[in-house]
Structure formats: C-alpha cells, structure tokens
C-alpha cells in the first residue's frame, strides 16, 4: 500500500466533475423530498453527495486509484439509488447497502490484483471454485424467470453466475497470456455448458462474447476467431430451434403487440415509457414508472428515459462509453499481457452487458435476462460490476506503480514532473 497523492491538475478535474455530480444528486433528492416531505429523501440528498465526495477524495489515498473511473461508477450507482427511490424506496435502501458492500468488493479486487505475484496457483484454486459455484444453482436453486440461476440462502438470494464473471476473466486471461489454449478451451466449454443447462442464455452470451473477444485480442488469429463466431451463431440457431422460449423471445422481438396480454406486456410497456419520455422526460417523480414490469432490474433504463428523457438516456450511454474508453486505455497501458487482458476482459464484460440490455429495451435485439451494470437493483449484479471495476482499477494502479518506478529509475530520485 503506498500513499498516493494525485497530481494537482488531475485533482482539479476530478473535483469539477464530482462537484457537478454532487449538485445533480442534491437537487434530485431535494425535489423528490418535496413530493412527500419524507425525511429520508432529505437525508439522502445530503448522504449521497457526501458519499460521492468521500469516494473521489478518500479512496484514492488507499491506492493509486483511477479517479475518473471512480467518479463515473459513483454517478451510475447513485443514479440507480435515485431511480429506485423514486419508484420504490425500500429497494433504494437495499441498493445503498449493496453499494457499500460493492465498494468493499472493489477494494478487495484491487488489492487482489496488486498482491498476487504468481497467478498460477491462484488460478489453480479459482478454477474448481468457479465451476462449483456455477453448478450450485442446478443442485440447490429454484427456477425464476425461466432460468435456474438463482440460489436462496435463508431469505438472501444470489446469482453465482454474476460472481463467477470475475474469476472467469482472471482464469481466461491467465490461460491466454500463457498461451495455454487447451485448458482455456476446456474451461470455457465447461462454463458455457453449465450455463446452457441452467438456461441462463443471457449470461452465456456474455461469457461467450468476452471469451471469444479476449481470444482474438491475445492471439490475433482471425481464422479461429471467425470459426468461433460461426460456431456461436450456429449454437444460437440451434438454441432457437431447441428451446421453445427462445423462439418465443424472438417472435416477441419482432412484434410484441401480438401477445400484449402476457409475454409482450413487458416490452410494450417499456416502449411506451420510452415514448412518453420524449426528449426531456416527463419529470422526476411524475409519470408511471411502476407500470413497467421488472422496472427495478432489466427495465430500469426505460424508467430513466421516461423520467429524464431521451437526451439524458443518451448521456447515460455516453457515461458507459467513457468507462469503456477508460478501461481500454488502462488495458493498453498495461505492461504485462495478463494485466492487459484482465482489464480488457472486465471492460468488455461491462460493455457487452450494457449493449445487450439496452438493445433489448429499445427492441434492437431480443430481450435477454441480463441486468444493467451499476444501475440495476440486485446485490449480485452490483457486486460483480463493482468487482469488475475493481479489476480495472487494480490494473490501473499497477500501471501507475510501474510508471512511477520507471520515473524513479530514470531520474534516480529527482523530480522530473511538477
């Protein structure tokens, strides 16, 4: 752990951005508070900006954090809390707790990435643990929303496939950086197979996408990547024919109004919400967000677009893009192939997940069962997103350390920069 003082210039940039973010949430919660004069809203109006301020100013003291990434993540998580408070305050309180746990997870991931020197034994341990976690819902879980990927312990529920995302990236990156293609292939096929058995096709799509893209990044073998793509497309077609509910989903995608009463209801309500929002939205606290099914998880983007408008929805999309940009930059600046792949893998995971869910909400692609990173309600989802960011932050901090080391070597202790 090194004491780290961010340079003054960056500090100014950070404080400007976080100031605007704090202002946004202060005014938003204040407005919501005026609706019912509930003290919780006013408390949140002070607490959320305070947490953001703490996040941008104190966390970087623990490790050389990437403050931009922190700011963006904070913004999105707080957006989730805001929208959830608007629709269902209980969810908001849960989400705040999950966020705290997520922060801890993020810091753990950062320390993990920095601390582990030899990844071989670590991966060796992670591999069976991941597979076991993935298999757990098959033995112990219950079926929800057509997929068996939840487990219930007491009255807590968790989605192991979300948590395994993190170890997937670590394991896949390890194998790819050491060019051990056979173990990589076996592991990937095993994961996908288990997910297929659980009928969690959305997560399977994500796993598959990230693995294939990381393969392309590390090996550059266009031929094999093409084969992988074709194989994936073939599997998709096979899935379409084999699984009835896949057929249904695709049919709903083409024309959700046909089955408005049952299955299409969700999509149509989402579209109506999008349309009602117009450009600047119907107003925070107005509109009827609760009429959209699963408004707290999959369709939270529709709620955001309804309340804040299309322009703001596009801004949220741009924020995700900024996270992707940052993650890619960090991956490109990594000194070791392994770190680069880890950072890129985490970035791709977040990016693909966002694309899939927003694509489903705006009816670009059929709806799948994934959630929106950071914003969606859900412990496992938020935890895994924060852990992924933790991986990226870990690599970023290693980059920073390396850079400082280079600087030290070059100047022999002199100050080269201001």
């Amino acid at each position: 752990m090194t004491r780290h003082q961010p340079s003054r210039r960056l500090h100014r940039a950070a404080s400007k951005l976080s100031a605007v973010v704090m202002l946004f949430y202060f005014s938003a919660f204040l407005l919501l508070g005026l609706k019912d004069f509930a003290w919780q809203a006013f408390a949140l109006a002070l607490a959320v900006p305070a947490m953001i301020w703490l996040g941008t100013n104190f966390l970087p003291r623990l490790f050389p954090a990437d403050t931009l990434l922190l700011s963006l993540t904070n913004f999105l998580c707080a957006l989730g809390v805001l929208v959830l408070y608007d629709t269902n305050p209980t969810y908001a309180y849960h989400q705040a707790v999950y966020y705290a746990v997520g922060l801890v997870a993020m810091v753990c991931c950062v320390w993990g990435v920095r601390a582990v020197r030899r990844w071989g034994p670590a991966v060796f341990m992670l591999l069976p643990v991941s597979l076991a976690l993935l298999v757990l819902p098959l033995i112990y879980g219950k079926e929800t929303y057509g997929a068996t990927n939840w487990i219930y312990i007491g009255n807590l529920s968790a989605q192991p496939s979300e948590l395994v995302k993190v170890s997937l990236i670590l394991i896949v990156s390890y194998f790819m950086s050491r060019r051990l293609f056979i173990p990589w292939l076996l592991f990937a096929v095993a994961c996908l197979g288990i997910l297929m058995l659980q009928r969690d096709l959305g997560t399977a799509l994500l796993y598959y996408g990230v693995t294939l893209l990381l393969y392309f990044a590390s090996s550059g073998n266009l031929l094999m990547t093409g084969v992988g793509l074709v194989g994936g497309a073939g599997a998709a077609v096979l899935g379409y024919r084999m699984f009835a509910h896949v057929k249904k989903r695709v049919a709903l995608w083409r024309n959700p109004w046909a089955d408005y009463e049952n299955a299409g209801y969700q999509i149509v309500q989402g579209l109506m919400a999008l349309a009602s929002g117009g450009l600047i939205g119907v107003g925070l606290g107005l509109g009827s967000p609760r009429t959209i099914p699963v408004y707290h998880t999959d369709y939270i983007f529709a709620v955001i677009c309804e309340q804040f408008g299309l322009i703001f929805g596009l801004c949220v999309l741009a924020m995700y893009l900024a996270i992707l940009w940052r993650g890619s930059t960090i991956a490109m600046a990594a000194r070791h192939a392994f770190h680069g792949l880890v950072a890129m893998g985490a970035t791709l995971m977040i990016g693909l997940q966002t694309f899939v869910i927003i694509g489903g909400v705006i009816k670009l692609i059929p709806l799948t069962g994934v959630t929106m990173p950071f914003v969606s309600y859900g412990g496992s989802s938020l935890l895994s997103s924060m852990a992924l960011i933790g991986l990226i932050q870990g690599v970023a901090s290693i980059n920073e350390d390396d850079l400082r080391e280079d600087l030290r070597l070059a100047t022999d202790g002199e100050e080269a920069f201001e």
Partner: protein
Amino acid sequence: MKDELYTVLALGMRYWFTLLGVLIVWRAFHWLRRDRHEKHRRLRQLPDAGMVGEFVSLNDAGDMTVDDTLPVPREGVLGKLYSCDVPVLCDGVAKYHLDLVYEDGLGLRVKPRRGLTCRINGEELTRAGAARNGVLVHGDVLQVGDAALRLRLFAGLKFRRPARKGAESRGRERTADEPMTPASGWQPSRYDGFSDPAWGENPADAFRDGGEAPQKKRKSGAKGVKSARSAKNSEGGERA
C-alpha cells in the same frame, strides 16, 4: 394544490437535469481527452517507459546493421513482423519467433515458439529447455536466425547472473570463445559503460556488487529534451 405545484416544479426541473447530465458527460470526456494528452506528454519525456532494456545488433543481417538498437519491453514477442515488439527483420526468423518476459530478480526469460530455436551465448535453446535456462541477463548474446543481439538492461533492474561453466561468479571473461565478432568492429565510445566488446578490461570496475548493470535508463532529462535515441547520458561520467 400541492400535487400540481410539485408537477410544475418537476416539469421545470427537467431542463435542469438534462443540462446537468450533458454537462457531466462533457466534463468526463474532457477529462479523458486531457489524460490522453498527459499520457502523450509523459511518453515524450519518458520514451523508455515500459522498456527494460534494448538489444544491440552485433552484425549486419537482413535489414539490420551493426549497432542497431531494438528496445525490449517488459513482455513481448520477437519476430519478423513489424507488429512484433522486437522486430528482427532478417532471414531465419519466423513471424513470431520468441516470447520474452522480464522477470524481476531473474532476467529476461526467453521462450521459443513451437518448433523454433535460438541460441543464448552460443548454446542452443529449445522450447523444452527454455524453462530451465532460457534466461538472458545483461550482456548475454541472443542469436536468432542470422541475427546476433546483445542485451542491455537498464540500470536499477535487478537480475541474477546464472553460473556458467568456466565463468567466474563475478565478471565475465569472454575472449576467444566469443562466438560472434562484429564485422565492422566495436566502437566503444558509442556505448557508455561498455568498456570493450570482450568485456575483458576491468570487469570489476564495470559492475557493482550484486551484478547490477551500471547503465541508466535513457531519459530526456529536463523537460523539453526530445530525442531519447541520442546516446546521451548525463551521468555517463560517473563510471569508468
């Protein structure tokens, strides 16, 4: 009445929230752009960032001439293609020939790709044997295809000198069994710290305790100095 007041207020605030959202996005991308400039600036001042040393070619082979330097990254691939981290453009070198990884405290680990070989200080190295003795340290000569490359590691990097048959633990005497001699002859003045190609003279002076190489990482020094490839080293005078 209160409901309608709230409605009006919320309707008015829509503009405010949209504005702030756009502002946040603008500032975030502004930050990203600024960081990119900062990164470029740093790279200009520290062009050897991420490098652990360089290969110096000892002969004219293919497109390379004597004394060409190829920077060596911490982790990379050596091969014939331009997209390799160490592009060695001459015959006998495959598209992707070796994987290089610098291991702290050990040296530059060399691992040939499947079916390919190279020579370290004259000894043949295959993929199987790479695990044991495929490590290059400061001063070792790597022969790949027609090219012969000598490794220079930057100062401050620790590496372990492996015990070799007939070599002393300190200093390295290589005279007659030096396999390659540059056709054009060594120009000692160009290489700070290198006393001569045979490394024979005053080896003890050339190396400090622990086997650390005396070279310092090339730096542009104060702000504004551009080229890093010019063989300048402000501390060159310190050494013998």
